[in-house]
C-alpha cells in the first residue's frame, strides 16, 4: 500500500516537474525570467570550458591555500586541486575549513592582516566590509563577463554585485526545500505532496505522534526553535517569505526598515507557538536533520546538503522521503570564490577559480556534498533522474521568488539578535499561544531594536 502511494507521489512530482520545467523563476527586487536549472541547456552544454591560460601559474612551485566554511566541501576542493595539478604540475594545494562561526572569526582576523588563503569561499554579503577596505580583488574581465553573461540566475548575479562591481565567482547556493517522509505521509493518509503553506500547516498535526503520557515523540513539522547564531531567524524569514513579506524591507530610496512585525509576522509567530502548545512540535525532542534521520520528525525545511548526509547516516531512509520546493519563494545565499588582494599569486588563484567554475567541477560539487551548483546553464537532467530527491531544489514552481540577503553589513547583527529574541519567544509558548496582542507587542519591541541598528548604520528609512 505504501509503495503505491509512493508511486503516486513520484508521478505527481514528475508532472509537477514537467509543468515547471521551462518556467521562469524570478528574483526580488529585480524580477527576471531566467531559465531554471532544469531549463533548456543544449546551447551551453556544448560551450567549451575556458582554456587554461598556460602562464597564469608560471613554473615556479606555488601552494594555493583554499579556505571555506563548509568542511563537507573539502573533498570537492581537494579533488579539484589534484585535477588542476595535472594541468599545472607546479601548483600544490592545502584546504582549510572549519565550522562557519570559526571560519568567520578567522576571516575577520586574517583578511585585514593579509594572512588569509589564496582563494576564499564565502558570501559577498559577509565579505562586503572587506571589499570596502580594498582587501579583495575585483573579478578579472573574462570572469566578470562569464558571471554577468547569462550563465547565472540574475538573482545570483545581483547577490554578488557590490559597490558597482563583481568580486567573486558564484560556486554554490544554499536553496531550501521541504523534506518530508513519504512513509509517514502515507500512514497519516495524506497522498499529495505539500504544495502550499496551508497544506504544510494542515498536515503537521496529523503527522505528529505522542506517547501515552501525551509527550511528543515525533514532531509533525520540525521547527527551528533553538540554536546559536542567526539560523533561527533565517528559518523564520523563509517561512515569512511564503506570505510575501520579508525581515527588513527596502524603501524606494534604498533605505531599510523592519517588516516582520506586520500581521503576517504575527500570524507566523503564532503558528510556531501554537505548534509547540498543541504538541505538533516540542522543544524536548531532536530537531532538524538529525530528527529527520532518526525518524523523530515527519518534515522540515533545510538545504540540500542533507541529501548526501542521509545516504551516509541514515541509509535506510533513502527512498522513503522526498523534497518539494517551498510554495512561494526562498532566500538565496550564494557562496562565491574570492581572491584576496594580498594573495601571493593572484593570477594563479583566478586560474583555479576558472577551473572551479567549469561544468564538471560544478557537477562534482553537487554529487559530493549536495550543495547546489551556482551556474544555471548546467544540464542537470541526468543528475536529477539519478537523484530524484533533489526535485525540491531543482524544480521550483512557476513565479518562484528568490530573495537575496540585503547588501548591508549590519544585516547579520539584525538577524542574529532577532534569532536570540525568537528563541526566547518560542520558549515562552505557553504564555504566548493564543495571545496575538502579546505577540504583536513582542514583535514591535524587537522591530524597534532592528530599526535602531539600521539607524546607527545610517540605513534606516520608512
Amino acid at each position: 500500500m505504501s509503495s503505491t502511494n509512493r508511486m503516486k507521489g513520484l508521478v505527481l512530482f514528475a508532472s509537477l516537474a514537467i509543468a515547471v520545467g521551462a518556467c521562469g523563476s524570478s528574483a526580488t527586487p529585480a524580477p527576471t525570467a531566467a531559465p531554471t536549472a532544469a531549463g533548456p541547456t543544449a546551447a551551453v552544454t556544448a560551450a567549451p570550458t575556458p582554456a587554461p591560460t598556460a602562464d597564469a601559474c608560471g613554473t615556479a612551485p606555488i601552494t594555493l591555500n583554499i579556505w571555506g566554511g563548509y568542511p563537507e566541501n573539502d573533498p570537492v576542493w581537494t579533488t579539484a586541486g589534484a585535477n588542476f595539478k595535472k594541468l599545472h604540475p607546479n601548483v600544490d594545494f592545502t584546504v582549510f575549513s572549519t565550522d562557519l562561526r570559526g571560519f568567520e572569526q578567522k576571516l575577520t582576523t586574517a583578511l585585514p592582516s593579509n594572512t588569509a588563503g589564496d582563494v576564499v569561499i564565502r558570501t559577498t554579503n559577509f565579505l562586503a566590509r572587506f571589499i570596502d577596505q580594498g582587501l579583495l580583488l575585483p573579478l578579472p574581465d573574462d570572469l566578470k563577463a562569464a558571471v554577468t553573461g547569462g550563465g547565472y540566475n540574475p538573482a545570483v548575479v545581483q547577490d554578488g554585485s557590490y559597490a558597482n562591481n563583481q568580486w567573486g565567482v558564484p560556486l554554490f547556493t544554499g536553496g531550501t526545500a521541504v523534506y518530508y517522509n513519504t512513509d509517514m505521509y502515507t500512514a497519516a493518509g495524506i497522498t499529495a505532496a505539500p504544495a502550499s503553506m496551508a497544506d504544510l500547516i494542515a498536515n503537521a498535526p496529523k503527522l505528529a505522534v505522542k506517547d501515552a503520557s501525551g509527550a511528543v515523540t515525533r514532531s509533525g513539522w520540525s521547527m527551528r526553535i533553538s540554536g546559536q547564531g542567526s539560523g533561527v531567524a533565517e528559518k523564520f524569514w523563509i517561512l515569512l517569505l511564503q506570505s510575501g513579506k520579508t525581515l527588513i524591507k527596502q524603501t524606494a530610496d534604498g533605505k531599510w526598515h523592519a517588516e516582520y512585525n506586520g500581521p503576517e509576522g504575527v500570524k507566523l509567530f503564532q503558528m510556531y507557538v501554537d505548534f509547540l502548545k498543541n504538541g505538533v512540535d516540542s522543544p524536548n525532542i531532536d530537531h532538524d536533520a538529525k530528527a529527520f534521520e532518526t525518524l523523530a520528525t515527519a518534515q522540515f525545511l533545510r538545504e540540500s546538503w542533507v541529501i548526501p548526509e542521509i545516504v551516509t547516516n541514515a541509509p535506510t531512509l533513502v527512498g522513503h522521503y522526498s523534497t518539494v520546493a517551498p510554495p512561494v519563494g526562498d532566500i538565496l545565499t550564494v557562496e562565491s570564490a574570492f581572491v584576496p588582494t594580498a594573495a601571493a599569486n593572484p593570477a594563479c588563484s583566478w586560474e583555479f577559480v576558472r577551473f572551479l567554475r567549469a561544468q564538471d567541477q560544478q557537477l562534482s560539487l553537487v554529487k559530493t556534498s549536495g550543495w547546489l551548483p551556482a551556474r544555471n546553464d548546467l544540464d542537470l537532467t541526468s543528475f536529477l533522474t539519478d537523484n530524484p530527491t533533489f526535485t525540491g531544489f531543482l524544480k521550483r514552481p512557476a513565479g518562484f521568488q528568490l530573495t537575496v540577503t540585503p547588501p548591508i553589513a549590519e544585516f547579520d547583527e539584525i538577524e542574529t539578535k532577532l534569532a536570540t529574541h525568537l528563541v526566547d519567544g518560542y520558549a515562552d509558548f505557553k504564555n504566548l499561544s493564543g495571545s496575538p496582542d502579546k505577540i504583536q507587542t513582542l514583535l514591535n519591541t524587537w522591530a524597534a531594536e532592528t530599526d535602531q541598528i539600521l539607524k546607527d548604520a545610517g540605513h534606516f528609512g520608512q
Partner: protein
Amino acid sequence: MRSPLARARSVPHRTWVRYRFVALFLTPIMALYIYLRILPTGQAFLMSFYKWELIKPAEKFLGLDNYANLLKDDNFRQAFLNTTIFAIVTTIISVFLALMLAAVLSRYVRGRLGGLLELLYFAPVLVPMVPVTLGWREIFNYNHGVLNAALGVFGIAKQPWLSDPTMALAAVVILSVWKQVGYNMIILLVGMRAIPIIYHEAAAVDGASAWQQFRKITMPLLAPVTLFVVVITTISAYNVFTQVYVLASDVQGAPGKLVRVLVYDIFENGFRFFKMGYAASEAVYLFLIIMALTIIQFRFLRGSQS
C-alpha cells in the same frame, strides 16, 4: 662578622656583578613577557575607548560610551546575569561537595579504598573539555539520554536539559561541577591532611563528635584554603565558554538553548558583529570582576593570617 667598613667596600662590586647577572638573564625574559602580554593587554584597554573594527582601527574616540552602552545592552545584561548565577551556583555546589568528600577521605575512609575513590573523583579534572562536553551532550539528550533514563528509574519525569532556558543553565552547572569538584577536593584534602592530628585527638578525648570536630577544628583551620578554592572556582566560572559553546552548537540536529555567557557575548560582538572596541570594553568589565575577586581573596588571606 665583618666590619662596617669592609662591607661598604665590598658591596658595590658584588652588587654590580649581581646587576649584570640579573640584566643578562631577566632582560630577555621580561622583553618577551612585555611583548607577549603587556603590550597586547594595553592595546586591548585602549581599544575599549574607541569605535574600533579590525579593518577600521581607532575609527572614532568614544570615551566611555562603549561602557555606558553595554549597561543598556540586553544581551550583555543577560550574559552578566547568567554568568553570575552560573558562577555562584557552581562554586557553592562544587565547594560544598568537595568539602564533604575531603572530610570523609581525609579521616574516615583511607588506605587503598580511599586512594581509589580519590582517583575516581579526580579523573574528570584531567580530560579535555571538548570531548567530554560532546559526551555530556548525549547524556543530556531528552529522548535517548542516559540522565533522563536514570531519572526514569526513580519515577522522575524526563527533563528538557538542553532546550529549556533554566534547565540548560542547570545542565552547564552540572557539567562544570562534575569537572571542577575533583580539583577542589584534592586541594582541600591536602589542606585537611596538613592539620595536625593532635588537635583531633585532643578533641576526641574531650568527647567531641566527628561533626563537632569538623565544625570547630577543621573548618576554622581550613578557612584560607577554602577561600582559595572558592575564589579560584568563581574566577574560572566567570570565564566559562567551551561548555556552553559546545552544548549549543549542533548544526545538524538538536541545538541546545544557548546559555549566553560573558565570553560568548564578547566573541559575538567582536568577531560576528565586528565591534572590536565594544567587545574590548565588555572584556574590561570581565577583567574588573575577576580583579575584584582576586583582591577579595588577598584581603581575606592576609586577614586570616594575621
